[in-house]
């Protein structure tokens, strides 16, 4: 597998090596088909205690909890949660705004691709399944969940070909994802979230309502945070083509304030919905961000 990994641009061996120690756990019960390490709502064989129930004739005798019988003189069966695998859907924003790099080492899209590849690798590596969905204002590409590294190949190859284009609509993409994904799954959203925070949150609510475990990776170029440019500049919106002439020094503080509010708002609401929210600029190494989610 290591040899094969060398061939993927966004999953280099060095990164895969660092991710060997990473493990992703989910907060909510999953609805996986295979036995694995994630708790599910159904009961089964595992070490994680769920409940005691009365013995019914026909139950295997070996399941009677004799220690309880010794204390209470009752036959009870010890039940445990079933541990299943998780289905991870990585949603990658490939809208036009992601193709931006000013202060960072790479574009947001490149960074997001590394992150998506890493997430899929880690999930598959821990016997979960991973799928890839790219979107801008709609779902663009969908790669079925796979549990093997070989199965990731189409998705990883697609990452190398995918280009940023079109205006983004995160809310619409999330609604579509919620309709597509059945059962409780692990949703990873990687985007710059350059959309009204209320609209984004409507999409989050849909996923939350469907019982999805959601992790949000908010990616921005460092320059988007501090506007290190200077002088009179005509800015052209990469998605809407709207132009705005500003004196950077003049508007910087107001801009930064608005960006921070946006981030703060998303973070706060993600916490309210028990979603993991991780913010990063493109300077941060991808494996560190993954490890941040791991622990």
């Amino acid at each position: 597998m290591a040899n094969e990994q060398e061939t993927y641009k966004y999953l280099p061996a060095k990164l895969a090596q660092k991710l060997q120690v990473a493990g992703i756990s989910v907060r909510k019960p999953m609805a996986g088909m295979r036995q694995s390490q994630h708790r599910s709502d159904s009961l089964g064989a595992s070490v994680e205690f769920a409940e005691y129930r009365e013995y019914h004739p026909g139950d295997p005798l070996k399941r009677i909890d004799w220690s309880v019988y010794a204390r209470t003189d009752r036959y009870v069966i010890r039940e445990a949660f079933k541990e299943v695998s998780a289905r991870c859907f990585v949603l990658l924003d490939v809208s036009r705004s992601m193709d931006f790099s000013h202060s960072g080492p790479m574009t947001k899209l490149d960074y997001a691709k590394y992150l998506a590849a890493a997430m899929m690798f880690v999930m598959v590596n821990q016997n979960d399944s991973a799928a890839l969905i790219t979107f801008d204002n709609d779902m663009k590409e969908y790669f079925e969940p796979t549990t093997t590294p070989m199965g990731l190949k189409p998705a990883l190859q697609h990452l190398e070909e995918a280009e940023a284009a079109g205006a983004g609509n995160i809310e619409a993409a999330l609604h579509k994802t919620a309709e597509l994904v059945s059962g409780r799954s692990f949703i990873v959203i990687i985007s710059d979230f350059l959309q009204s925070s209320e609209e984004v949150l409507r999409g989050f609510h849909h996923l939350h309502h469907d019982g999805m475990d959601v992790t949000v990776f908010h990616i921005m170029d460092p320059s988007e945070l501090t506007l290190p440019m200077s002088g009179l500049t005509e800015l052209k919106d990469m998605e809407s083509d709207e132009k705005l002439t500003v004196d950077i020094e003049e508007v910087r503080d107001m801009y930064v304030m608005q960006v921070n509010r946006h981030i703060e708002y998303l973070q706060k609401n993600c916490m309210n919905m028990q979603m993991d929210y991780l913010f990063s600029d493109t300077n941060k190494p991808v494996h560190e961000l993954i490890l941040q989610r791991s622990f």
Partner: protein
Amino acid sequence: MGFGFPIFLWFLPLAGLPVIFHLMMRRRQKRMEFPSVMFFLKADPRMHSKRRIRELLLLLTRILIILVLLLTLARPSLKSVPGIGGQLAVAIVVDNSASMDGQGDRNHTKLELAVIAARDLVDALGEDSRGAIIPLVPDKAIDVPLELSGDKDRLKDFIDRVRRTEARAEPANAFARIRSVFDDAPDGMGRAVHVFTDLHQAAWDHAGYDHNIFDEQIDVVFHRLESPERTGANATIESIKAPQQLMLPGHTYDIEVTIANNSENSAEVRINYEDSLGATSSERVPLEAGTSELMRYPFTPDEPGAHWMMIGIEGDAFRSDNRAGIGFICKTGAEVHFAGERPEYGLFPQAISPTGTGRYTSLRPIYKDTHEMMNFANEDAGRPAMIVSTWRRLGEFTEEQTRTLQNYLHDGGRLFVVPSVEAYTTSPPAPPDWIGASPLQYRSPGELVVAHILDSESDIWQGLRDDDGNVALRYFLMDRFSELEVDEESYNLLAGIGRRRPILARRNFGEGRIFVSGMAFDRDWTAFATDPSGIMVVMLHNIAIAGTSVIRGPENIGVAAGEEIGGIAGPHEPIRIDSLIGDTLNVTFPPGIRPSVARAGAYLLHKGDRTYSLSVRAAPEEAMQKYVEGEKLPFLGDTPHHIAHLSPSRDFRRSLERHFVGLSLFLPLALLLVALWALEGWLATTHKKRSRKIAHGNTDLIEKEPAAAERRKSA
């Protein structure tokens, strides 16, 4: 508004530089793609328009900074003249008219105060300024050149030369000289006019200009000298007149002088007389308030040439209207041309000149054949004092002779038409129609017929009046005569048997006179001719020389001091004035300049080959105590000017300093410049300071969003 360094105003177009830079910066502004502009618009939906407004404000502020900076460097002042440090051409006008001889304060006349103030003004001039001293009344008796000078000592010397005159000021003349001075001033030099005057009504209270005298903005300041009320009586010489007639040696002429008391107090003044013959007299004359006195001074020139007479008044409260002079040119002699032979005129020629040579009377009879008459053309030298003709010979004149005769009369000549002594034997011939008179049938009734004097006011009776002015001759007797038929509208009847039967009559013909007689002046015709009292001699002399001059045009010009002498006939030639008595003058005025004389006296005025006597009296209106009140002078019309009270010397110096410094706008403009600079700095950098620190990673400055910053820092 004046400027100390107006050169900086040339740089005002530099104020357009910010606009150019602005446009250049717009062209050079960066363009970049940015993920989203939503945060900018979220921060301020009107950011774009606000930025444009601030940009325009910044541009405007920068333009204003350059403008105000240049204006500040130009050292503006609110005065219309440049302040200290600027160049200024100042016309300093000192009113030297007669009224300025009045008392100004206890110890000085107004003119003396004006001189002191003018010297102060010269001292107050800036180092780069220049001045010109302009006496309000042109005074050729003092040497004050019409020039701009930066030498203060020289200017003060000119001021000290200004003396009182007896003239009325002609401000138009002074302002013409001011313009001439300013025309010579270098370009770029400021201009100002300072007039030290009492603003006498005679000079200033009449419409002079109805437009701005100057093409440019010039500071015109009148420093008014106050005129304390004069209490004493004032007498003035209203007029001095010599008889308008040919002046000949040996003849006596009455010079009439009118002395008036135009004050409200009675006066007793002394009248002093002096003439060119060395005669002097002095007499006390009482004058009631508001009355005048006519005084006659007989004058008998003893020889040909220029003669003069000066009259002066002593003992009144104002001295600058107390003198008058009169001059006259006494001819060597004059001819009386008789048409025909001497016997035709009886005793007439003998009455004109007993010796026949002109001795004693300066009139010399000349007898000419009819065809030789009128050959003097238009030359003054050959023109006779009078032409005498008989009725018959008058009809024998050719057309050309008649035309010459008419021209001679038009120019002031005299024609006397009488019957020939022998005429009673023939019927009187019909004279030419243009004469307007003709004799009827000669009569010799055998008894004496009385002819009465019909016009006792005529000047032919001059010298024949008693002390009451009545003509001593009331009638005369005639043996022979011819009544005259005259055009009653044109002829004045001098004597006759009755008003309907005239014997002697006169009419004016142009400037000249025509006398017609129905009586010959001989013993066979009238006893009047042999009257031992010499009445006929006097009358005929008066007819020959009284009234108008035989020389074309007036010979004696009378003006008030300061009055421009105009109406002198002749070609475009310079005029020279020499003094007989009065200011010592020998000055030539170029052609086109109307001369004037500043003081009373008698002068000779030469133009071409003609010489006139010029009689100058003090300007009587200057004695009136009437001055222009208010803040505007009618004379100046729309010319901006300012009237300031001339304060005592020390205060005046201070006010001059304030005037020349003006209200400097340097400090206010400098403060405005600082304020603009601060505004520009605020507009340009207020938002940038915080932004720059944020750009360098110090996001703690974003006070409202500490949590996000903290979180990212920890991340």
